[in-house]
């Protein structure tokens, strides 16, 4: 994943660095420019040079620092405070994080929470203000599709697609754009809000050298006007200013694209065009950045990131990754005899990281696939333990326990369990009644299990106990 700006085109992010290699916007580690006091709670700009400075960067730093450090700041680290106001938009960290019980406790300390919501859930349960939002089937948005943006590089076209209401909104829900505009008006931010839309925060810049569909920044605009201007700008962008088809055109046609060259799938042609030296010595820069970061932290007496600093190497070294989890298990008082299995997870298309679990249809079709409703265990190993298919089993780690039906499978290692569900639902309608086993109860939120990018893994050493026969 490329984190450089602009996010919409990888090629435009390719620039030459002063050393002749490709520029990468490492967060600064020099004495002059390092930021010792993090501007955001996960401290990615301070601790993780590689996370860069794109809108995605905050999501890729050590997000669990926010929760861990709020409870207890590490040595020589600025105190992490709760946000004055916390806006929560289409995310549910109360069920989708490591050690969710701990996360819920920290959220409960927040003084004021504003949540956008189309359903009651475990996080907006704690909201002081709830803003009922339409679903995607009831609201409008223009979305970039295809192209060479940072994730999907294998399109033959680029352009824009319109999401438009298929049904009328239910209840007292509103289009997100309407809610955002109303908030801007009430908070006295209308002019800045309109300026942000003009700059392209909604999808595409409304004013460039080629065209101008910008909004009057002093006026409040309707949902349709905002998206009509956005559609016009999108048409102009794709036609180099020639066309200006608006919302009505997109409502009829759905999407507008233009072909792109397959050369734009790859960075190499752009590197060659700009005469940029090729990649390999890049690791030397990483080594230097790691040393610099270590110097900055040590100057402030911070030693608790030293293990992570070891990962900044000139050439990749062999790491004993399983050993990291094994050593931590022993350090926490566990043993391999007590926790003989590895517990892993796998992504589920149907559950979409937890957001679809409360949709009956998605839960139903997920049931067609092995593993969604329980704990997958090797058939031979299960037989050794006296566990039959469907038996209720308990899975426990040093952080907690969960339970669910055993799903016997030949296609898994005898020393490994697979748990597809990672969701501790207790409020979301429908999902809360599924009583699915949750891996989140078994995963620690821990500095020892954090790598130098601030990331970790859904992984734990666990034990298994049969609780009873299939019901």
């Amino acid at each position, binding site marked *: 994943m490329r984190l450089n700006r602009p996010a919409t085109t990888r090629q435009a992010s390719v620039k030459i660095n002063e050393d002749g290699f490709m520029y990468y916007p490492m967060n600064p580690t020099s004495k002059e420019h390092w930021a010792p006091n993090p501007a955001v709670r996960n401290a990615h700009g301070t601790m993780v040079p590689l996370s860069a400075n794109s809108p995605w960067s905050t999501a890729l730093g050590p997000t669990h620092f926010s929760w861990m450090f709020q409870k207890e700041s590490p040595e020589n680290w600025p105190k992490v405070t709760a946000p004055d106001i916390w806006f929560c938009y289409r995310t549910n960290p109360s069920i989708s994080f490591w050690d969710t019980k701990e996360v819920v406790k920290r959220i409960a300390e927040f003084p004021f929470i504003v949540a956008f919501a189309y359903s009651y859930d475990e996080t907006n349960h704690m909201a002081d203000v709830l803003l009922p939002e339409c679903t995607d089937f009831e609201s409008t948005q223009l979305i970039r599709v295809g192209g060479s943006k940072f994730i999907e590089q294998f399109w033959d076209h680029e352009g824009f697609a319109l999401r438009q209401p298929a049904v009328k909104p239910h209840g007292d829900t509103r289009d997100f754009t309407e809610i955002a505009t109303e908030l801007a008006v009430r908070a006295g931010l209308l002019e800045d809000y309109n300026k942000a839309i003009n700059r392209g925060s909604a999808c595409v810049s409304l004013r460039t050298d080629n065209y101008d569909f910008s909004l009057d920044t002093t006026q409040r605009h309707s949902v349709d006007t905002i998206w009509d201007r956005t559609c016009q700008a999108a048409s102009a962008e794709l036609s180099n200013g020639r066309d200006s088809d608006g919302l009505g055109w997109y409502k009829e046609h759905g999407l507008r694209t233009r072909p792109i060259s397959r050369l734009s799938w790859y960075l190499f042609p752009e590197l060659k065009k700009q005469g940029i030296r090729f990649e390999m010595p890049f690791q030397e820069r990483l080594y230097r950045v790691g040393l610099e970061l270590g110097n900055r932290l040590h100057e402030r007496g911070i030693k608790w990131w030293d293990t992570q600093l070891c990962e900044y190497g000139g050439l990749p070294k062999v790491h004993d990754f399983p050993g990291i989890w094994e050593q931590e298990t022993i350090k926490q008082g566990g043993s391999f005899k007590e926790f003989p299995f590895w517990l892993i997870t796998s992504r589920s298309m149907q559950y979409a990281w937890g957001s679809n679990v409360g949709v009956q249809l998605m839960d139903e079709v997920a049931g067609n696939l092995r593993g969604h409703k329980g704990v997958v265990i090797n058939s031979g190993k299960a037989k050794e333990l006296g566990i039959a298919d469907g038996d209720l089993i308990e899975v426990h780690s040093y952080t907690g326990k969960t339970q669910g039906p055993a799903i016997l499978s030949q*296609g898994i290692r005898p020393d490994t369990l697979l748990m597809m569900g990672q969701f501790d639902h207790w409020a979301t309608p429908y999902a809360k009644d599924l009583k699915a086993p949750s891996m989140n109860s078994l995963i620690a939120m821990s500095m020892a299990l954090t790598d130098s990018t601030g990331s970790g893994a859904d992984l734990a050493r666990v034990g298994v106990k049969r609780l009873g026969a299939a019901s």
Partner: protein
Amino acid sequence: MTRYIMTADLRRCIGCQTCTASCRQTNATPPDVQWRSVIDVESGEYPDVRRSFIPVGCQHCGDPPCMHVCPTTATYQRDDGLVEIDYDKCIGCGYCAVACPYQARHITHRVSFAYGDTPMASEEARLDPRRTSVATKCTFCMDRVDAAKVNGLTPGVDPEVTPACVNSCIAGVLAFGDKQDPDSNVSKLLAETQHFRMHEELGTDPGFYYIWDKK
């Protein structure tokens, strides 16, 4: 004579269940009634194990056992190969469900909704009381196929007259068309691949072909 069939390229299926969801929505079937679904099959023993995803449903057999056992002639076969059910004649005896080797038939004796006793607006609007206590199954989206006769479009080629599961497939697994037309997409697919039909040995002449390799 037309014989509409469906093909599933097992090399491409990833078990996403988009066809299942699409069918459920298009045909407004109640919870747990899946006219199209994809089964998840494990074969072999550790460590030599394979996992296969297999789309299943009514095979629209050339010699359908469900039709032969139907005491009221509710189940019938059309000239274009589609096996259909006349809900007016069906008495819900279930003989067809027992006779079908593909477990493709469903009978529900009470109305049910996704979230308890209160239907969603979409469920309420599309509730078809004729479907209670009768046999139901995949129709190959009969209404779409029939629309082709009126608008001159080609099933399997034009999305408007193609079964919803085929349209929705994100991996190009499913195809639909006329097997008797040598130029149809399904005829070409079958000509260039190795394939099998499920329980073919039972003599049902299924209209669902599973592609597993090139020739």
